[in-house]
């Protein structure tokens, strides 16, 4: 009988494009920790020890192969002087943009991590997970890319206007964000994070053209990731990546988050041992999945991308909605054990999730 790998061994094996004992599972749960502890989402994120306890319980419950000490995206905007808006049933959201006039960019300076109480809480949670979780579980920390943070700093439409009509201010803002992003990523690695998930929805061809990506986002990603002292996954938060996929090895990222809108099997072929794929379960639709459909979705994803390693099963957004019931998550976790154990047997039954809906 084979000795099961630790989560870290499983992940490192798949990253080296070999088959581990089973497909690693990254259930990217943030708010569900609050439910485990019987706390409101706002209370839960108010203390790093709650997040540590939440992540430990979630991992125990779902046999997750990572800790995910990501609080919420708005925590970075808060560091820049923005507001975080809490709700009872969803991720804390960014308040109004902090840049209301593009000229403000001229006087803007990046915040220091050490001066940002919200970011310090995240670092404390990472340290807590490192202390209590040991070295067997990868800790995946998160940064917003310099190219995507302006969505919150300016608002989406004002950001498009800046990009197309004020190129000098656009370039300055990206440079400021780049300095912050690198510092924030490295602070999380120094606190004990194993890898950084570089969230960059703006780079997706869903949002900008491949030409705009190559002109602006790709150089920034390459420079920023080169300055991050650890492995990096690039994630488009549900956005497509097929049209820029062949450019992605240049960024230095080892893992790519894949959308449910992408063809996972086709991308696996194109990855050809160069990149590991992360994805691509539909978190929004997951809320209403039946047991049979949840199992079929897991099986289909593994059949599309599991062979030969280089694949981590996850949702396609980087955060599973609070509304997804525990029962569905348990079915997903069980299905990974059943269908994700190598050598894969996913060809033994129908794979079409639609047939189970």
């Amino acid at each position, binding site marked *: 009988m084979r000795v099961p790998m630790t989560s870290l061994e499983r992940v490192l094996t798949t990253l080296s494009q070999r088959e581990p004992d089973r497909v690693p599972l990254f259930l990217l749960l943030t708010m569900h920790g609050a439910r485990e502890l019987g706390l409101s989402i706002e209370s839960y994120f108010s203390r790093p020890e709650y997040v540590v306890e939440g992540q430990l319980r979630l991992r125990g419950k779902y046999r997750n192969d990572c800790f995910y000490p990501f609080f919420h995206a708005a925590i970075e905007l808060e560091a820049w002087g923005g507001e975080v808006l809490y709700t009872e049933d969803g991720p804390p*959201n960014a308040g109004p943009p902090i840049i209301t006039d593009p000229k403000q960019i001229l006087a803007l300076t990046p915040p220091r991590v050490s001066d940002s109480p919200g970011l310090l809480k995240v670092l404390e949670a990472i340290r807590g997970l490192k202390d209590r979780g040991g070295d067997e579980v990868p800790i995946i920390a998160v940064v917003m890319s310099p190219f995507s943070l302006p969505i919150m700093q300016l608002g989406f439409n004002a950001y498009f206007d800046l990009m197309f009509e004020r190129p000098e201010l656009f370039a300055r803002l990206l440079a400021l964000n780049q300095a912050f992003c690198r510092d924030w990523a490295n602070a999380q690695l120094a606190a004990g994070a194993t890898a950084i998930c570089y969230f960059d929805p703006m780079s997706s*061809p869903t949002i900008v053209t491949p030409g705009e990506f190559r002109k602006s986002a790709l150089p920034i990603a390459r420079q920023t990731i080169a300055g991050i002292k650890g492995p990096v996954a690039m994630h488009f938060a549900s956005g497509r990546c097929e049209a820029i996929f062949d450019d992605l090895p240049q960024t230095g990222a080892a893992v790519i988050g894949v959308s449910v809108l992408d063809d996972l099997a086709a991308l696996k072929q194109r990855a050809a041992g160069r990149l590991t794929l992360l994805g691509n379960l539909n978190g929004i639709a997951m809320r209403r999945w039946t047991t049979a459909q949840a199992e079929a979705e897991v099986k289909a994803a593994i059949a599309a991308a599991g062979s030969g390693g280089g694949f981590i099963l996850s949702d396609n957004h980087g955060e599973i909605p609070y509304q997804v019931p525990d029962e569905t998550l348990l079915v997903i976790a069980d299905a990974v054990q059943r269908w994700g154990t190598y050598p894969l047997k996913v060809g033994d039954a129908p794979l079409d999730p639609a047939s189970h809906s």
Partner: protein
Amino acid sequence: MQTQDSIEVFLDALLSMDRVVARRMLVDLNPEAALIDIVEPLVVPALERIGVLWEQGEVSLSQVYMSGRICEEIIDELLPACDLRRIDQPAMAIAVLDDHHFLGKRMVCSVLRASGYELKDYGAVDGRTLVERVMRDQIRILLISTLMLPSALRVRAVKDALERMGCRPLIVVGGAPFRFDAELWREVGADAMAGTAAEGISIVRALIERLTARSD
């Protein structure tokens, strides 16, 4: 009547963000023409086509956004909001529910205005404020944009509150949660879902016909 070639040229001008060519093509149409004669031949088919291309992953949101904005600017210049040649329509409004992400709303506003419709823009509002404004303005068609799943789910509460007050506007929803869950718009009690901003044009047109048929 415009040829398919003209539509292609106009489409290319929008996708490459070439305001000069786009403007010239619209201005060269008869300046005394009714709005429908200006927007129907070029603007509507081009914006609808861009919406389809975005759904197919062929163009980006930045192109969708800038295309709508360019068309809106030109149409506003040719036909200001008070111009009698604009479309006569029931009261219509748009809002972002419980969020500060305005892009979806902005794009829908642009394509509808560029297509000759007028609508009130409530900005970002919570459910209670939205209900109050819809009641106050006697809105018949309400467009709600959301980005996050919790906001999308709160459309149901808005609909129920309006019904309790005897107000039954037709509700059109749009935004990422509805694109990733094809059943969600029905679950929250909406009358339609626009997968793209441009799809809002044909939906609004159909809903206006529905309202007209009701009142006949």
